[in-house]
Each structure stands twice: as C-alpha cells, then as structure tokens.
C-alpha cells in the first residue's frame, strides 16, 4: 500500500499534518513570548539536546523511508512466475509506439504474469503509463523520441488495463490512451 501513489500521499498527510500543528503552536508561542519576553529561556544544554534529537529523528526517518522504498523500484521487483517463462527473462513482450496522439500496441491481450514493455516515441515526448483495472498507476515511463525504454511489470490481476500519456504532448494529450487485457 505504501508503495502506491495513494500510499505516498497518505504518508505525506500523516507526516506533514502533525508538523503543521506543531509549527503553528510554536509560532503562536513565539509571538506570545515576543510581547513579554524577559530573557532567553532556552538553555544551551537543552537546545543542543533537542537539536541532536531532532536531527537523529530526521536521519532515522529518512533512512527508514529510503530503505523501505527499495523494493518499489521497478527493476528491482522480483518477477512473478508465469507458466512458460523464466523469471529472469519474461517471454511476454508488448511493443508500444507512442505518437501524437495515440499508441500502437502489437498485442492487446497478455497472460497474467510478468510482461516486458518495449516502448518508443515517434514525434515528441510522451509517456507510457499503465493503470491497473482498479485505476491505480502501476508505473509510468517517459518516452523521448529516438530513445527506447524497457519496463518489466508483474501483471497478476486479470482485467482491462489502461495506457495513458502523462507528458504534455499538445492539444490531443488529454485524449491519448489505449487499452489491453490481462487474462488469467
């Protein structure tokens, strides 16, 4: 869940909302103290302690999030086992050509399992963004003309997948999409 787009935004909310509350309270306190302060009240020792604690907390949080995120990197994900293919080399390949404003795909139906997408852009920048049957973005790949991008995904959920372009490519950008099916 945390590795999805929704998961990212929920974590953003969970971390930033308390930060905003604490920041606002400290700011109100600072303004209140600004009216009637009789002297500096933060002892040097206490301040150093808080500084070290804060930086250690941030460092630990940052390290944990980075380590947890490693398995979400597309090229590091373990490949799903599919009959007739080895995990190291998926036999199902889908070739995608993006152009203003559509896609040509050489196959519209694949078996549930590991699928390798090989994508190119013809004319300008586009993207190959694959939405699951539940509407969740599984991965997005930026396509520059003249470059060839490969992406391997585990498509285990049967259903209709949608491909959209998320890189602005002109007036037809919003309507640029294609679909394919994953069968069990």
């Amino acid at each position: 869940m945390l590795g999805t787009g929704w998961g990212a935004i929920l974590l953003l909310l969970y971390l930033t909302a308390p930060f905003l509350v604490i920041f606002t309270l400290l700011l109100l306190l600072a303004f209140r103290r600004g009216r009637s302060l009789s002297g500096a009240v933060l002892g040097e020792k206490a301040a150093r302690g808080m500084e070290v604690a804060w930086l250690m907390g941030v460092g630990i949080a940052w390290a944990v999030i980075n380590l947890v995120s490693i398995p979400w990197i597309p090229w590091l994900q373990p490949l799903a086992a599919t009959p007739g293919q080895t995990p190291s080399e998926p036999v199902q390949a889908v070739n995608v050509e993006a152009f203003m404003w559509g896609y040509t795909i050489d196959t519209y139906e694949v078996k549930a399992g590991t699928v390798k997408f090989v994508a190119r852009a013809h004319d300008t920048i586009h993207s190959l963004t694959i939405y699951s049957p539940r509407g969740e973005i599984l991965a997005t790949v930026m396509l520059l003309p003249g470059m060839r991008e490969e992406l391997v995904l585990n498509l285990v959920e049967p259903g209709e997948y949608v491909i959209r372009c998320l890189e602005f490519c002109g007036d037809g950008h919003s309507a640029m999409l294609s679909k394919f099916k994953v069968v069990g």
Partner: protein
Amino acid sequence: MASQIRLEDLTYYPRLMILSSIAWFFAGGAAGLAMVLAHLTGALRIADYNMLLTFHGVVMPFGGLFQLMMGLSLLRVGFCYGKSVKGPLVKASYFTLNVGLLLILAAIFVFGVRTSYTLMFPLPASGALKGLWSLEGLTIFVWGIILVLAVIITLYPASLARLMFGGKTQEAFVLERFVGTLNPAGMAGMLPYIFIIPPLGTAIAIGAVTIGLALLGAIPLSSAGWVLHPLNFNYPFWIWAHNLMEAMGIMAIGTVYWLIPRYTAVLRSSEVVEPRLYSEKLGIFAIVFYSTAAVIAFPHHLFTMPTSQPAGLSYTGQIASWLTGFGAAFSVFNVLATAYAFGLRLTPASLAAMLGFAVYIVDGFLAMQLGTIGWAYRLHGTYAVTAHLMTILLAVSLIWIGALYHSYRLLFGTEVNKKLAYIHIILTAVAALGLFYFMAFMGGAGTPRRAYPLPIPSDTGVLGLVGFGVLLAAAQAIFLAQLFKSLSKPHHYISDTV
C-alpha cells in the same frame, strides 16, 4: 555629501521590478483561475486552455516570482552593503527580462505556441512540424526564452555579484548592516545563485542560442543537430532548471535567515535590537549542505527513463534529494529555535516569512517523495508533481512577500495596514496548503497533470482547486487594494534624500 545621495538610487529599479512582477502575477493568476474554472465548466476550447497553461507557466515563475526576487534581493544587497541599485547590469536585467516575456506572450497569443508549463522538448519543434503553430511563432518563442535565460544565467547574478563584491560602500545607504559576505546566514543564501547558476546554465544557454540562430537562418539547421538530440537537450536543461528552482529556494531560506533574527523580541522599550539567530554556524552549514546536495539531485527529473538513464545516476539523484531534506531539517531547527528562544514580534514580515517557511517545508516532504525512485514511477506526470511545483513557488513567493512587507515603507513611502496584511498572508498560506493537499490527492489518484479536459474525472478535486484558487485570488486582491492605496498617495520617496 549625504544630501547628494538620493534614496531613489537605491529603490527605483527594485520598485520597478516589484511592480512589474505584481502585474505579471496578476495576469498569470487570472489565467490560472480561468483554467481551474474551465475544469469546472468546460467553457474553454482545448487550444485556448493550452495557451493559458503556457502563459501561466511562463509568467508566474519568471515574470512574477523571479522578478520579485530580483527586485527585493537587489534592494536588500543595496541597503545592506550601502550601494546604489542602478547601472547598466541592473537596467539590462529589468528590460531584457520583460522584453523576453513580451516576446513569449506574443508567441503564445498571436502565433498560438502552446507547449505547456515547461518546454516539453522537442514539442516546440514537433508542434511547428505538425502545423499546430508556425515557424515564425516558434522563432519568436525561442528568442523570448533566450532573453529570459540571459537574465537568469548572466545579467541578474552579475548584478548581484557586482553589488556584493564591487563598488564602494556609501555609509548613508547602509540601512541594515551586514558583516562580511558569508556571515550571517541571511546573506549566504545569495551565494549559491551567484556561483552555481551561471556555470550550470551555460550549456542550455549555448543550446538555446544555437537553436535560435538556426531558426533565424544565421547558421545551418544541421549545426544545431547536437542540441536537438533529446538526451543532449534534457540533461543540460534539467541540470539548469532543477538548480534554478533550488537556488531560488535557497535564496528564500536566506531571506528567512535575514528576516527572523530582525524580528526577535525587544526586551526593553529603549533597547536597540541586534539581530539574533539561534546558531549562525548552523545556518551557514545548512545552506552549504543544502546547496551541495541540490546540485547533484537533478537526475530525479529523469528517473522514469529506466533504460536511457543509468541506474547509478538515479540512485545518486535519490540520495541527493533526501540529503537536501536533511539540509532543510537543519534550518527547521535553527529557525524554530530562534523563534522559541528569543520570541518573535508579530509583524507582517515575520508572519509571512514564517508561514512561507512552513509551506516550504511541508512541500519539501512531497519533493523528497517525488525524488524517490519507487514513488516517482507512480506519481510522475500526475497532479502530485503540480502540487510540488506550484507549492514551492507559492512558498517562496510568501517568504518574499515577507521581505516586501519588511521594506514596504522604503519602497512605497507609506506604512502597511497591518490588519489587511495579516489577512493577506494568512489567506495566502491557507490557500497554498489547500491547493497543495487537493492536488497531491488528485495525483495519488493518478489524475494526469496538464490535461484538459481531465481524462479521469475528479469532481471533488476540481471543486477544491476552484475554492482555494478563489481564496488565493481574494488574498491577492486585498494586497493589491493596499498597494494601489499606497501608490495613489503623494510619493515621498521620489524626492527624498538619504
């Protein structure tokens, strides 16, 4: 001697830049509001929406924020180092930027060039080849960009450097004294812009001029082939564009370090308050640490090219992105410890700087998420990225609004109506956060950015954007009313001498 120095020498060009930036903000903001209303009503044609999108994308960061930063930072250096803010570099910065923006404006609305918020290379050329806009329009567009680049990469940093390191200090101009150049941290924030942007922008500037000359027929088109290769273009572009945004952010953090120590509590009514910061060393360390990490964080813009971008470069981009967050964490502690330990006087300047800083930090977490390879593959190209870009620009704007309120009397000759200023600042911060969270959630739901009409319906999201967009506009209307009132009063500053 003192009577020969005119205050106008210090304030004339900064004021011109600030007023011009407000005009661009107003025009770009109106376009932004029209765009969110179009999502609600469907009233715009796609081509018209895309023209507004391009216009909004050009004028808000460059005509508005960059120019506001240029005016206020030059003013600050002027009165901190005691030097007049004029001369060929300052004049050229102002006129070149605005002429460049007017050329881009003509390319958009006369020739229909509509490439969206950023260049989306090679869309400008592909659009011309596909007949979406003409080659003449493209030529004007590119030369407008070249002029804007000239200011960002050479003229403005040169103006800043000349004021900081060249010329003689006129004591009568020293309104707020700084010691040295690196200390205090408030001035150190300007150094990354001066030393990082010119070298990192050179490659993209050479590329842009090459394309511009080829479009004019001054050199053969084949000689621009190396720039037109997408990777050759995108790496220099992102090295520059990423670091420009970072340098503007660091400049804003430097502004927080400049303002907050000046608004710490007065202990006795007779006391002259010396600026106080919890730790100068930590402030300078934070800026140096952040700037260093930011320089190498640019590969996160190209994470989603799994084959073309080497994995090692992506890993470097992720680590560097999170290190910038660590750099920001130093500043969070330093600023909050300053406010808590010494108390803060409530003024429009201190409130705007602190709220802008809070919005900057909140947005910073999303920035780090987008700088994480695993999340980038699920969020890149969605409204989450719009949330980040728009919010960092709003946060930095709010911090500079603090600087504007700090220098309001110097610039416009009248006192600020504090009540109106507080309403302006609080509404701006609330609207910025509201837009941020609505856009972030739309991004989490996979809604594509820069797409009209939205291919994935998001009624709640659009309502949120309209509501907070209107709130943001209302806040700026309050500021404009106050500004017009100030401008309509007799202008004491024109004839004043120091």
